[in-house]
């Protein structure tokens, strides 16, 4: 029953990426379930990753066994030739790409018999996008992208049409705290799209960063946005008191948001960023900044397709699965919450 709903959810998304809030939140299990459901629904699935995943044991703790990535027969995979050889899966190489990882070049292959494999895709998002296009060209009807742990880049709408977010008991001892961390992460993922057409057209062309004032724009060196001291940011606002919006072409770091908040005082400020994978807030949630009059908008919004929960924290504590799912669902509207282990 629950599994069918997961199938329906993932079937409608051409390119799905998986994002785990931490190690052992069940991302790899969620990936396995997604691939299995897509296969059962009759789709040829293509799998790749940002970085590497799928080893037999956890990279942090060897006592924790990790499920490896199981591919049904006929699936397409983009990984390195060496890892394919190691998997000993019977496969047909469809294309050699120019994308080099320290583990060798990424190749695209079709597996002729089902089995498990380690996946290591290209490390840059631009290259992952090309690899996904290639897999589609070679017959993949749905693409699943495994984001390495904690890597927001995998949620970028430049590569994924939908995101499955995995959360779990491992984040905190206290269920309320886990729900809060998850809600903050979802808030960040679902940053609203900027609707102001003037700002959008400015943002599409920006290099580095830019302050929008009452009567024009002022370029901001990217160094100020990444590493500027409070004094430098304050000087910027002293010189341009009518500044009301900042467009950031690259990364929006929390230190910059904080410096701007202090410099702009009670005036409030709007940030426009490419997409939510470029926003780095770890100290305070979006809600706090919103209450201070700081708004963040994106050019392209990410879509959250589903949330999976892992109620078990390996070698530690566990929550009641149903209670956990219901608490997450109550705190985060408009998204389905699954326990992938229970669901499949």
């Amino acid at each position, binding site marked *: 029953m629950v599994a069918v709903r997961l199938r329906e959810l993932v079937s409608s998304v051409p390119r799905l990426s998986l994002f785990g809030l*931490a190690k052992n939140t069940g991302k790899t299990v969620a990936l396995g379930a997604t691939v299995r459901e897509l296969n059962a629904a009759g789709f040829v699935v293509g799998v790749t990753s940002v970085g590497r995943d799928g*080893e037999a044991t956890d990279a942090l703790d060897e006592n924790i066994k990790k499920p490896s990535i199981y591919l049904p027969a006929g699936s397409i995979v983009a990984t390195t030739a060496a890892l394919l050889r190691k998997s000993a899966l019977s496969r047909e190489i469809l294309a050699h790409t120019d994308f080099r990882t320290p583990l060798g070049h990424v190749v695209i292959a079709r597996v002729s018999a089902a089995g498990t494999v380690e996946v290591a895709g290209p490390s840059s998002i631009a290259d992952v996008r090309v690899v996904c296009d290639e897999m589609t060209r070679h017959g993949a009807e749905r693409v699943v992208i495994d984001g390495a742990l904690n890597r927001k*880049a995998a949620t970028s709408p430049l590569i994924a049409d939908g995101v499955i977010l995995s959360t779990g008991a491992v984040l905190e001892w206290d269920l309320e705290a886990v729900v809060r961390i998850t809600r903050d992460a979802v808030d960040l993922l679902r940053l609203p799209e900027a609707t102001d057409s003037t700002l959008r057209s400015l943002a599409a062309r920006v290099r580095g960063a830019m302050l929008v004032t009452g009567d024009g724009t002022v370029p901001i060196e990217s160094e100020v946005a990444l*590493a500027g001291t409070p004094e430098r940011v304050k000087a910027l606002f002293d010189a341009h008191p009518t500044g009301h919006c900042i467009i950031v072409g690259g990364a929006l770091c929390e230190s910059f948001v904080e410096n701007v908040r202090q410099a702009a005082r009670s005036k409030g400020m709007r940030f426009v960023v490419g997409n939510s994978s470029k926003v780095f807030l*770890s100290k305070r949630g979006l809600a706090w900044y919103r209450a201070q009059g700081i708004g963040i908008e994106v050019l392209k919004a990410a879509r959250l397709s589903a949330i999976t929960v892992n109620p078990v924290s390996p070698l530690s504590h566990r929550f009641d699965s149903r209670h956990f799912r219901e608490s997450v669902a109550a705190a985060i509207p408009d998204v389905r919450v699954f326990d992938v282990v229970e669901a499949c």
Partner: protein
Amino acid sequence: MPESMIQSVLKTNYGMVKAYADHKNDGIVQVAFTLPVPYARSSSKAALELAKAMGLVRPEVVHCQRVTDGYTYFIVYAHCPHSVDFEALQADTPDVDFMTQAEVEAFSADRIGRLIVVVGASTGTDTHSVGIDAMLNLKGFDGHSGLEAYACFRAYNLGSQVPNGVLVAKAVAVNADAILVSQTVTQQQLHVHNLAELVDIVEAEGIRKDVLLVCGGPRVSDELAKELGFDVGFSKGTYPNHLASFIVTELAARTVEARRDSRLRAAGGW
């Protein structure tokens, strides 16, 4: 020379390998240990029993010596029946032959031919700069000079507790070839979040393909580094020349590919 060394590692078909003593794959090993037994006729038997318990076959005590009252030191030769699949291991680790400082400099002059810029820091809340200092500073550690001492590197060490944004800004400002991150002491897997954020900021700034990302520290493994999207991770026992060997070998490989790519494009074969 480094080139032939690298080619030989890449090309030789190693397959399963055993320990080597007199001839290839004879499996002979030498084990040394001390037992809390008196230096007496019967003590060698204890050493042989222990060697058998280790899974060694046909052990011989070739040396035994009194350490102090009640303690004896042994050297045992034996046959080890186990083998390892070196080829499968090569699939997992970026294979780079370690070069000395002089070899790195010669290799770099030959294959890269310009100054290599590296920027390093201990990031986040980590106050310990011991790791990054050992790799970058002139004095290095344990008799191995840091990258500052190499003719082929221009190294910037930003120190400890450096925010990720500051490290990336510096890398952009000096057009760095490599960013080195050290994480020495962390709690609650904080290093994982911190390292992932660095890679994501580099990606958000659009420079991921232009820099080598290297991380290191006692709790960092190559596997973890890869999983987080770094190019390599270095753990305990790393000397500056190991790091230097990786950087120059990887940059040389990328340079070769970039040249080939531009030739292909020029020839319309793209």
